[in-house]
């Protein structure tokens, strides 16, 4: 490590979202009510590009917070507004919150975007964009995907689909194109200018269906170009596939991560690309570790890949080992500092770490 800071949140989080001004947002996902949404100001060590030494301020500060009656499974800021959107069980409705103004530090729930529900207990995956207006893309299943205008609550687009597969993630590739990832692994593209055309899974080499999948798309500093960025998918058994969206008939790369088995389920599977380091991605959700990989050396053989770095802090930290080892619930990369990541685990720990490139002087 070059740097490691460990913090303890009062309640564990399964999301870490960046907000403007380098703020970070976390939220509780406990079943009982009284979950808190916290917008944090990271310590100055994280705000500057150069890592300082013994910085006077090494702590996170809670800038503002809100109370949620339901567990918060997903949270996204709505760009260019002071709003954020959350979702969580028991249904796929969304809650819209106002991040406070000058006079108070409370995040207030200002409205709810209700959706028609099936009988299943599912929660909506969300993505936001503010191209033509502040929009939120949401849905728990392929046939329930829609885009709603956040402020007016108007429905802007509804996807037409034959299938009703459960979704594990969705994203805006640009202001007209959506990328949807199903829990069984299929990727679908949709153009919102053509709402009538069916949304179908892209043809790609088959991947084992018994596993659960999640995806990671790369958000470069200059916004994402559909063509250039490969999409990564991670399965609950540790399989990693990289796909170029222009040529989905074959994998760009296929590799296997060494993960414990039997796995701990797919609840917290997370894969993300490094925004400031070409070809690097990180995975977590199998145990108390986060793995960092350099995908530039990968091929399509499906061989086991060696991680460039493994963060084990969550497995060792904490007060007294009673019972289960903590499980990493989420991780994210720092937007500017190339090797800095934040990770959170089921025991409430929040780590900020900066790893050293192994083939260096040490």
């Amino acid at each position: 490590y070059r740097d490691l800071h460990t913090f303890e949140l009062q309640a564990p989080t399964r999301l870490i979202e960046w907000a403007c001004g380098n703020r970070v947002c976390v939220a509780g996902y406990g079943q009982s009510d009284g979950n808190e949404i916290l917008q944090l100001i990271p310590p100055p060590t994280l705000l500057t590009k150069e890592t300082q030494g013994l910085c006077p301020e090494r702590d996170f500060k809670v800038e503002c917070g809100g109370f949620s009656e339901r567990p918060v499974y997903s949270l996204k800021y709505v760009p260019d507004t002071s709003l954020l959107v959350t979702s969580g069980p028991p249904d796929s409705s969304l809650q819209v919150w106002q991040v406070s103004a000058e006079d108070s530090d409370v995040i207030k729930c200002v409205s709810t975007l209700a959706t028609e529900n099936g009988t299943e207990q599912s929660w909506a995956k969300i993505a936001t964009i503010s191209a033509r207006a502040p929009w939120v893309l949401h849905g728990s299943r392929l046939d329930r995907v829609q885009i709603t205008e956040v402020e007016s609550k108007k429905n802007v687009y509804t996807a037409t689909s034959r299938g009703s597969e459960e979704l594990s993630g969705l994203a805006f590739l640009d202001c007209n194109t959506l990328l949807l990832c199903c829990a069984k692994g299929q990727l679908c593209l949709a153009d919102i200018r053509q709402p009538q055309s069916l949304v179908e899974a892209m043809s790609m080499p088959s991947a084992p269906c018994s596993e659960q999948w999640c995806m990671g798309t790369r958000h470069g500093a200059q916004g994402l170009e559909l063509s250039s960025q490969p999409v990564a998918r991670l399965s609950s058994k540790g399989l990693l596939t990289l796909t170029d969206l222009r040529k989905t008939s074959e994998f760009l790369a296929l590799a296997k991560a060494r993960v414990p088995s039997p796995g701990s389920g797919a609840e917290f599977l997370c894969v993300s690309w490094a925004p400031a380091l070409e070809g690097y991605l990180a995975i977590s959700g199998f145990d108390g570790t986060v793995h960092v990989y350099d995908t530039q050396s990968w091929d399509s053989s499906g061989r086991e890949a060696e991680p460039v770095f493994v963060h084990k802090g969550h497995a060792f930290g904490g007060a007294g080992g009673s019972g289960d080892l903590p499980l990493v619930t989420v991780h994210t990369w720092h937007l500017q500092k190339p090797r800095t990541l934040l990770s959170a685990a089921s025991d409430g720990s929040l780590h900020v770490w900066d790893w050293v490139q192994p083939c260096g002087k040490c």
Partner: protein
Amino acid sequence: FPAVLLCPGAGQDVGRSCILVSIAGKNVMLDCGMHMGYNDDRRFPDFSYITQNGRLTDFLDCVIISHFHLDHCGALPYFSEMVGYDGPIYMTHPTKAICPILLEDYRKITVDKKGETNFFTSQMIKDCMKKVVAVHLHQTVQVDEELEIKAYYAGHVLGAAMFQIKVGCESVVYTGDYNMTPDRHLGAAWIDKCRPDLLISESTYATTIRDSKRCRERDFLKKVHETVERGGKVLIPVFALGRAQELCILLETFWERMNLKAPIYFSTGLTEKANHYYKLFITWTNQKIRKTFVQRNMFEFKHIKAFDRAFADNPGPMVVFATPGMLHAGQSLQIFRKWAGNEKNMVIMPGYCVQGTVGHKILSGQRKLEMEGRQILEVKMQVEYMSFSAHADAKGIMQLIRQAEPRNVLLVHGEAKKMEFLKQKIEQEFHVSCFMPANGETTTILTNPCIPVDISLGLLKRETAIGPLPDAKKPKLMHGTLLMKDNSFRLVSPEQALKELGLAEHQLRFTCRVHIQDPRKEHETVLRVYNHLKG
């Protein structure tokens, strides 16, 4: 009802603590701090608010000081000797021993170094301390017939205490600065379920999520190690007491583990005073230290030796702890001047530095300092700041509230705007009211007074015989007659009351006429009504 006033002064800064509490007719001053950021009269609280109505000694029943930090006791000599107060001042034994040292230290900088005039003198500090009554933990002290106080362990620094102030059945708990997690040399704050009407808690760090102690220590040791490995010297300016011991223990353990050979020195002044006080107040440190102290003297270190000023010129790496803590005078400043020009060396400031001191200047980034005689000192050595101070964060505050179970909570030291979230959190979780007054603002807390009433044995027996026994959580309704005579309240059965008052019992019967239209026969209708009522 208790009314709380945060003593007015300049601004709403965190700088200073001074709170006035009015409880059941008694007036108590909690802490008497000085603002460390100001160089003029703004550093002292403005007492004219109180004095305009008469003498302070008549108005105040007592003054309580929570611990020896200057932002809690720095204005005490000014208050008692220059403004004028002759009543009792309460604090714990360690606080009483340490306060005068820090006050004198601070007086020296302000008057001798900066040449200020409107400041208290050494004699004033002495006279002030003569008015101090030292208290033990958990000892109930009767200030007068009605007012009593009790100190609880607060952690934070040696001798720091939280105080419970009780008048009759109304009580207030003031926390001062406290810490809910134990560290190497102090335990965690603790209070029993005293259920005060009001808990006044500091909330400076309420919105902070602290970096783990292990990480801070790891980084501190890493810095020291790196400097020593490259042959540099590390200067750590400290106050005589407090964090110095913590850091010593930390270094000693590290040196032992890593088998390091570089010498570590402790300023002679420090060794004597510190050890002396710690031995005196060993009960105030935490369990672990007390245990090891029995086996070997925890403050006699294997790797840490007494310092001699000649050693500062020795070649090679070393670590030195020297007083005073802000590099404003004395040995630490002397050593600093010798080592500042070499970039291999490092100075680590372990605490807050007052404006005007060298410590403050170098922390602000100044690298060319003007010393006595117009000499310019160029600072090439590395300057680091490492804060180990222990305060309660949001989680700690919630823990304390859970322990004490107050009916109301008042938060001091935070900015009201930024505390709305914490206020709601406290109110939601504990169903109590939470107040956040600004400086100069008076908050009034309404309490439900408890009025003790004697109950006659006969009535008690009768009521407990009926139905289940009363449960502490579910009050049971009972019937009786309250007799108020002179100043006594008694609850007796109605029959007894009548007898005592010499009154006869009357019975009132209410009848009312109801018309029922029913085609059935009379006795049938009566039967139906009867059955209906019975059912």
